[in-house]
């Protein structure tokens, strides 16, 4: 019997991290994710952990680099403009193969933008916002319960592959309250941390954590090693939800809070005699191509719905690979697509 609580998304992320064994949090406040730092400030001292409000996002991500180098579970969080500031550190930590969790509760951009929910950081998160051939695992929860499950899982994945894992949410998910069921005890995967720079006491060779390899032949070898790891992740970690796809005329593709709106669209469409399904990517990287293979023969078309100008739609087109037409509808700047917005696009596609 677990613990059933009504909690805010942001607070659940923080609590989940603590339950997953995270004892180091470095951050800097920004709406709409500040409750994560707020909760950590209160919670970390209770469990003997470190909460530190850094002087900037750049500083916070480099503190993450330091703590992760010692093999400890560590997290930082921010929202879109703050995540842009962290990109250099993200690239460095990826090169140094450091496991850590980064939370981005997205808001409207570009620039300082606004504070309302958005999904316009999809490219940045999945295609490499920093330099170099690297990837983060990107998880996209769609409920408060899933914020809990996937935050715990993010730490496990990070350790399993020595990779950065990002929780990509938006202002709706961060701010909303839903019921969360916490397990009594978390299963914390043990992992080999023999690479960590945590003091060798003259009993072993010292470990080096670095992303610099000046000799191009050596750097290529490192890159081959990274790519092998990414390939393993693509093979093992694709996650998605299929909903109502069995005989759908159009399959909607959406993640996070927009996927929730799409479930509302499906219900409304049913009442009007239109059959819709939903493919909800839970991992945005690796993109769940496997999910598309399962359903690509069913619909007349895919309709991607995002709070952006259309970013994930490019991956949907790659996954569909010309077999079915792929359409897009979305809102930007902090505006949230309505059921009517999506349904009228559906009718346009079906010529109804």
């Amino acid at each position: 019997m677990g613990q059933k609580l009504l909690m805010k998304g942001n607070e659940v992320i923080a609590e989940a991290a603590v339950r997953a064994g995270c004892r180091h949090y470095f951050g800097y406040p920004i709406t709409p994710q500040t409750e994560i730092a707020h909760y950590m400030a209160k919670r970390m001292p209770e469990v003997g952990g470190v909460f530190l409000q850094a002087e900037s996002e750049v500083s916070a991500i480099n503190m993450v680099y330091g703590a992760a180098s010692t093999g400890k579970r560590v997290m930082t969080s921010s929202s879109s403009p703050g995540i842009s500031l962290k990109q250099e550190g993200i690239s460095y930590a990826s090169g140094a193969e450091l496991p850590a969790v980064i939370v981005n509760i997205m808001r409207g951009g570009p620039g300082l933008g606004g504070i309302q929910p958005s999904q316009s950081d999809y490219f940045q998160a999945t295609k490499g916002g920093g330099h170099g051939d690297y990837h983060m695992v990107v998880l996209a929860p769609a409920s408060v319960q899933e914020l809990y499950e996937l935050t715990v899982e993010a730490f496990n994945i990070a350790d399993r592959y020595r990779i950065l894992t990002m929780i990509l949410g938006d202002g709706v998910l961060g701010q909303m309250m839903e019921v969360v069921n916490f397990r009594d005890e978390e299963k914390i995967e043990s992992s080999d941390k023999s690479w960590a720079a945590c003091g060798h006491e003259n009993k072993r060779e010292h470990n080096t954590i670095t992303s610099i390899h000046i000799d191009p032949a050596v750097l290529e070898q490192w890159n081959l090693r990274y790519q092998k790891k990414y390939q393993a992740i693509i093979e093992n970690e694709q996650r998605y939800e299929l909903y109502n796809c069995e005989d759908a005329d159009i399959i909607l593709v959406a993640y996070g809070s927009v996927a929730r709106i799409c479930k509302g669209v499906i219900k409304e469409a049913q009442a009007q005699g239109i059959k819709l399904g939903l493919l909800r990517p839970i991992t945005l990287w690796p993109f769940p191509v496997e999910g598309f293979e399962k359903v690509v023969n069913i619909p007349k078309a895919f309709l991607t719905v995002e709070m952006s100008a259309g970013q994930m739609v490019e991956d949907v087109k790659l996954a569909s690979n010309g077999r079915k037409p792929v359409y897009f509808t979305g809102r930007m700047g902090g505006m949230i697509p309505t059921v009517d917005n999506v349904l009228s696009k559906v009718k346009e596609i079906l010529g109804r």
Partner: protein
Amino acid sequence: MLLHEIIIAGFGGQGVLSAGRLLAYAGMLEDKEVSFLPSYGPEMRGGTANCMVVISDEAIASPVLNSCSALIVMNNPSLEKFEKWLKPGGLLITDSSLVLKKPSRTDIKVIEIPATQLANEVGNKTYSNIYLLGKLVKETQCFGVESFEKALYGILPKRKHHMIPEEMEVFKTGMNY
């Protein structure tokens, strides 16, 4: 199927968000599916505030509402903004001490309660939202009175628990107003 899509709107400081949290919490206590989505950002700080609450016996699709089955408004701008969101046959409850405009819809049920005035009469103006919630719960039957009382104990800090018996009186006055 039970599905309540409720919007509460007013000024920051009137207990708009607290009212929404109480609804969601009480719904949870009855093992219903609940979601609570507050407005956030600059409008919270002295401007208008609103929240969206869904109570359902099925998994909730979206916590983001574009229409509602019940609406509580605690100031004039909120009436103007949200009246059109009500579904036909929906329920509108206003704090008529502050909402001086009359709703223009004729296809909804309107209940006016001078909640701020009633609250001032019992000497605690923070009770105005509780009068309105009492009426909402009576009309929608979205959960039982006992669950509301438990929600107060669950949500209010301990130092305020001594006020709960009085708040329950206020709640019941609202129900029967």
